[in-house]
């Protein structure tokens, strides 16, 4: 063991801190002349956002990679995060605000709106500025030109296809032509009569496209302090001494918070999930010991972000370095422990068994075994985490604006940590720049809150991209060991699965990822009939970053396991993989279908999904193409994976619980306000929910305003996770509307002196016999104003114009059977994903050339939004399986902490995506809807792997490691060649 003293652990300095010199700049921004004296070291992006107040320019990284901040300097697209303000002196600058306005979108912006070229909107301003520059230079770009022109702009939501189509459409429009997207863009179900089923445009887009979005960092109170966090450079180290005195003495530094200070004042992190797991005691800042590289050690609040960074360099920390645990094997071995008070490093160990597993294996014609290790990766939303805390010393109230998916749970967790009455805390969520699961907990988010309480001033923390990788929530990283017994015909007799997840330092408190291995255990059998099943799921702790949800939450683990097993088994048995799938599918006539572990699959048609995918991919002709290509030395492969997306989780003893409430309120003037505890994080639920209310209430979507994300306004609700909107959000909204409809009918009948049964709903009101008719406005005015409730509201009806409905899943069963079966999901969306790949066997590079998803999420409310979710999910799935990997070295140092080295897909990495829809309505939700949105990351990786293995079949390669990075591919190809 060695002792080390670090100054500014992660940020060593080679020179003295920059002097506070200033420069005078004169420039033109959006046609307006500006003269300003600014600090010499000010980044131009800060000048644009803070000094000019042009908050349409967003920042998503610190190193010129993401492109969200792209603007034009003298007509060239540039990244102002890579420039000092001084360098813009004398320049002509144009930001997104120069293109169009919310009232009058520019043609390019209008094309983005029409083609759903944005979801969360965070990357959109930069994307627009790159596209605008392209179109000014090249009025007739090809699709390839467009994709190349936006390689400097990362979008995490859309999968790029709709962005590319938007730009091509704008170009065509300017030339007086009409753009038709190439085939494969989507095959929609028949247009419906009502609003539900229509792919209407999103009204929110006007502001997101023009720089009028309101992300958490966009609106700062006067005098807001900035947070910078000193993080442990060591994965496992005792903290001997922390000296903050020099930092505290610096001009402009208001407070420096240490772990001991926070522990003396507040409480540790409460657990967020506990299904019989071992819990750790952990604090917002490390107290005695740091358990991963990046754990907060101290947090500074200072007058500006540059000063806050300077102060970090002045904090002295003495560490005693301990041996880190960086692998599952080391963790199980147990000679080093992450938590001194635990018996071992195992945080979760759950098992299930039903059916005669051993008997089945004994009589099986084929026994197939497949093991693999799956790598660690993360969501990387373009807006990292941002929290703005404003403690009001006068009232004692605390307002927390934050970029989260679950405002109410955050409020409770803040209350528990701070020991503060919960009603004193208001959590407000404005626009959210993507979440994908990593914004479902509070972790570092509590630091600015503590600093605000200590200083009595507003304090913001804007997570840097490096922080997001270091401490942000990681997922996957598991070992899978599967064995399956088949009869002579390839029918499954029994399946066993053993999964061990590397939960990093924490999968229950700072983040709740350990449950994803538990979910994998429940769904190991996928879309297939499995008569006997034995499974074990373990979660172990290591000295890596916390483990949490990321688009999939174990559904991906189960899916990857069973769908890879099917291809491996087919080869061994001597069947076509899809034939093996067909022989084992749960059949369309068998729903609702209860699997051994307890979940009830609501509806579906798996053979049809597979047929659709085979048709779209030209399955029957592929073999000939493949052979012809191989003769030229080109390795093509086609692979399929079924997808099962359990949605609407209802997990006991957790923040993932089982109720959702909606309030629908009619205004006296006859329009509507829907208040929901669900959260719009860019996926577009406010548009979809307005469509539902419009149909239920017989109005237009523009008559409905949807409010979410303010704990002082909306009813208690649980937010956006587990694709639960399709079940909980939509059902509670529709049920509230139906209840309000009945109330309005009674009041209308009373006002018209008719029987309620005599009234027919019509657009915006009711018609009765004899030409009698009444509008919602007349009802609303009648109840609240002229004449008022005494004259208009019948006896037994409460004198208001609102109804609240709390929806709970009928499918949930929390009392386990003696074998341990449970039911904790409401819906089961499904799909079949298919990918065609080309592998360069000399360099190990894989290119996905075509991809298609046959998708079934029950009743589709807005097909454009659904397609967008599928596209974006597929792009994330491609990135995940080919490139995205969080690599730790043996000392527990995370090696890739920037978007240059953690490789999320860019426009040139994603092929054109085809989507086909099947609608198998759920019998268990009000409208037949099902949750969706996670299918892409769940189904795509296995489809791509199956395709790659298919391509490499002549070389005898079995893929056992991920991601399929070129170096790993060459290793596995060499191993295949050696054994075949």
């Amino acid at each position, binding site marked *: 063991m060695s002792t080390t003293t670090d100054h*500014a652990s*992660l*940020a060593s*300095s*080679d*020179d*003295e*801190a*920059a*002097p506070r010199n200033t420069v005078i700049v004169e420039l033109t921004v959006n046609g307006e002349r500006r003269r300003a004296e600014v600090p*010499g*070291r000010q*980044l131009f992006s800060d000048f644009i956002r803070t000094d000019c107040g042009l908050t349409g320019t967003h920042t998503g990284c*610190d*190193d*010129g*990679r993401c*492109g969200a901040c*792209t603007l034009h300097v003298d007509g*060239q*697209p*540039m*990244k102002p*995060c*890579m*420039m*000092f303000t*001084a*360098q813009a002196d004398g320049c002509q600058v144009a930001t997104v605000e120069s293109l169009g306005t919310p009232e009058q979108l520019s043609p390019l912006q209008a094309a983005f709106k029409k083609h759903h070229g944005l979801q969360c909107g965070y990357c959109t301003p930069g994307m627009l500025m*790159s596209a605008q*520059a*392209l179109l000014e230079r090249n009025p007739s770009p090809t699709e390839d030109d467009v994709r*190349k022109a936006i*390689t*400097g*702009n990362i979008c995490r939501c859309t999968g790029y296809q709709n962005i590319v189509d938007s730009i091509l459409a704008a170009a065509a429009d300017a030339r007086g032509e009409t753009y038709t997207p190439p085939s494969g863009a989507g095959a929609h179900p028949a247009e419906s009569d009502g609003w539900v089923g229509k792919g209407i445009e999103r009204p929110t887009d006007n502001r997101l496209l023009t720089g009028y979005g309101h992300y958490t960092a966009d609106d700062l109170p006067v005098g807001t302090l900035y947070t910078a966090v000193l993080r442990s450079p060591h994965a496992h180290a005792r903290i001997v001494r922390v000296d903050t005195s020099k930092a505290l003495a610096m001009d402009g530094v208001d407070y420096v918070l240490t772990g001991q200070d926070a522990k003396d004042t507040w409480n540790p992190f409460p657990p967020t999930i506990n299904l019989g797991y071992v819990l750790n005691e952990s604090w917002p800042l490390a107290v005695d010991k740091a358990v991963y590289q990046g754990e907060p050690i101290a947090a500074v609040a200072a007058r500006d972000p540059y000063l806050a*960074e300077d102060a*970090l*360099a002045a904090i002295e920390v003495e560490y005693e370095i301990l041996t880190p645990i960086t692998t599952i094997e080391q963790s199980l071995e147990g000679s080093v422990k992450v938590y001194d008070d635990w018996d071992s490093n195992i945080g979760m160990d759950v098992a299930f068994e039903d059916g005669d597993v051993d008997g089945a294996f004994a009589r099986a014609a084929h026994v197939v075994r497949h093991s693999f290790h799956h790598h660690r990766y993360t969501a990387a939303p373009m807006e990292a985490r941002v929290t703005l805390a404003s403690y009001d010393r006068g009232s004692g109230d605390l307002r927390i604006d934050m970029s989260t998916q679950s405002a109410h749970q955050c409020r409770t967790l803040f209350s528990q940590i701070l020991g503060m009455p919960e009603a004193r805390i208001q959590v407000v969520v404005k626009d959210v720049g993507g979440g994908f699961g990593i914004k479902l907990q509070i972790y570092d988010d509590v630091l600015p809150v503590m600093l605000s309480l200590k200083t009595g001033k507003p304090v913001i923390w804007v997570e840097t991209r*490096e922080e997001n990788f270091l401490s942000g929530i990681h997922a996957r990283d598991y070992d899978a060991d599967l064995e399956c017994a088949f009869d002579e015909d390839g029918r499954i007799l029994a399946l066993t699965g053993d999964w061990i997840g590397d939960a990093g330092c924490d999968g229950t408190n700072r983040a709740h990822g350990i449950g994803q291995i538990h979910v994998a255990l429940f769904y190991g059998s996928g879309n297939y009939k499995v008569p006997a099943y034995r499974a074990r799921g373990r979660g172990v702790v290591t000295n890596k970053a916390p483990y949490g949800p990321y688009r999939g939450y174990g559904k991906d683990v189960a899916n990857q396991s069973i769908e890879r097993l099917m291809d491996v088994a087919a080869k061994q048995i001597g069947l076509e993989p899809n034939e093996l799938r067909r022989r084992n599918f749960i059949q369309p006539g068998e729903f609702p279908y209860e699997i051994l572990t307890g979940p009830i699959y609501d509806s579906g048609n798996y053979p049809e999904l597979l047929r659709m995918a085979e048709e779209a991919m030209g399955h029957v002709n592929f073999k000939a193409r493949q052979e012809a290509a191989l003769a030229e030395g080109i390795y093509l492969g086609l692979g399929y994976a079924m997808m099962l997306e359990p949605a609407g989780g209802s997990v006991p003893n957790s923040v993932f619980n089982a109720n959702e409430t909606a309030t629908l309120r009619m205004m006296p003037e006859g329009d509507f306000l829907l208040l929901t505890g669900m959260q719009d994080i860019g996926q577009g639920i406010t548009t979809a929910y307005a469509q539902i209310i419009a149909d239920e209430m017989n109005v237009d979507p523009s008559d409905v305003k949807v409010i979410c994300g303010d704990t002082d306004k909306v009813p208690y609700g649980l937010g956006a996770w587990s694709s639960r909107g399709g079940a909980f959000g939509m059902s509670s909204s529709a049920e509230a509307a139906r209840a309000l409809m009945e109330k309005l009918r009674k009041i209308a009948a009373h006002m018209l002196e008719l029987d309620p049964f005599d009234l027919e709903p019509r657009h915006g009101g009711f018609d009765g016999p004899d030409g009698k008719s009444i509008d919602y406005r007349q009802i609303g005015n009648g109840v609240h104003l002229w004449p008022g409730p005494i004259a208009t509201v019948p006896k037994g009806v409460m004198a208001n114009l609102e109804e609240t409905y709390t929806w709970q899943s009928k499918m949930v069963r929390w009392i386990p059977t003696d074998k341990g079966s449970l039911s904790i999901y409401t819906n089961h969306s499904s799909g079949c994903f298919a990918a065609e790949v080309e592998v360069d066997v*000399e*360099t*190990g590079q894989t*290119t996905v050339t075509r991809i298609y998803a046959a998708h079934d999420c029950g009743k589709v409310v807005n097909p454009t939004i659904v397609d967008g979710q599928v596209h974006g999910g597929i792009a994330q799935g491609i990135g995940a399986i*080919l*490139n995205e990997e969080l*690599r730790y070295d043996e000392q527990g140092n995370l*090696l*890739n902490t920037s978007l*240059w*080295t953690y*490789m999320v*897909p*860019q426009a*040139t*990495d994603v092929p054109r995506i085809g989507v086909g829809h099947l609608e198998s309505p759920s019998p268990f939700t009000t409208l037949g809807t099902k949750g969706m949105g996670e299918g892409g990351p769940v189904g795509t990786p296995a489809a791509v792997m199956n395709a790659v293995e298919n391509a490499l079949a002549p070389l005898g390669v079995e893929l056992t490691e991920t991601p399929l*990075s*070129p*170096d790993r591919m*060459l290793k596995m190809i060499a191993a295949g060649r050696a054994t075949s």
Partner: protein
Amino acid sequence: MVEVNAGRRRPSSVVSLTRVPELAGWHREGDEIVLGACLTYADMERGELAALVPALAQAARTIGSPQIRAVATLGGNIGTASPAGDTLPVLAALDAVVEVAGRAGGRRVPLLELITGVKKTSLAPGELVTAVRVPVLRGGQEFLKVGTRNAMVISVVMVAVVVDLDGQSVRAGLGSVAPVPVRAREAERYAGEHTDWSRGRLAGPAVARRFGELCAESTAAIDDHRSTADYRRRAVAVCAARALARALPPLEA
């Protein structure tokens, strides 16, 4: 700039060269091209310059995004001296000479002598790269880069092959496979000896493969977060063979 933002460098002052016209653009002097230190990648990737030094244009096109190509400069790439600097293998293959100015006056130094290690150069304090001289050559040029995806990627390996038909030589510059850009001298000699210079063709496809293997032998690759040493050697062999076969097509076997 990236290092400043990450807090890894905290310079007390920064001087912008954007508005020094003497450092911008390029011009021809006889058989040489003089590239200004502030020449941007956007300047290199198209137009007459791209026709004169095609490998440089190919390298420029693989770099970053339009936003970055608009501001990133040749001088910056040299000064940074990163093993993954994209133009460096091309400049190495071209035997580029760097013009350096300082208070004591100017000097000319070959690129391979200027770059002395990972992010290290022989520039003295106060010295500035002002220009780079490269020859105009008759013959094929090829730049190939393996990253872990198609664009906007820091390279795993880079190979630049330059053919000089008049001087009857093949030159290969390798990047990301050693602390500094590498010339594969043995491979160059081998290729030169196995070329039918009268027809301007390699003697056969096997020559390209052997050339690739010899290139791989001249590397000092390491494992890092982007790839492994083993992979880099194999990728160099494949890329070098492909690059040579494109720059100097082989006679059929």
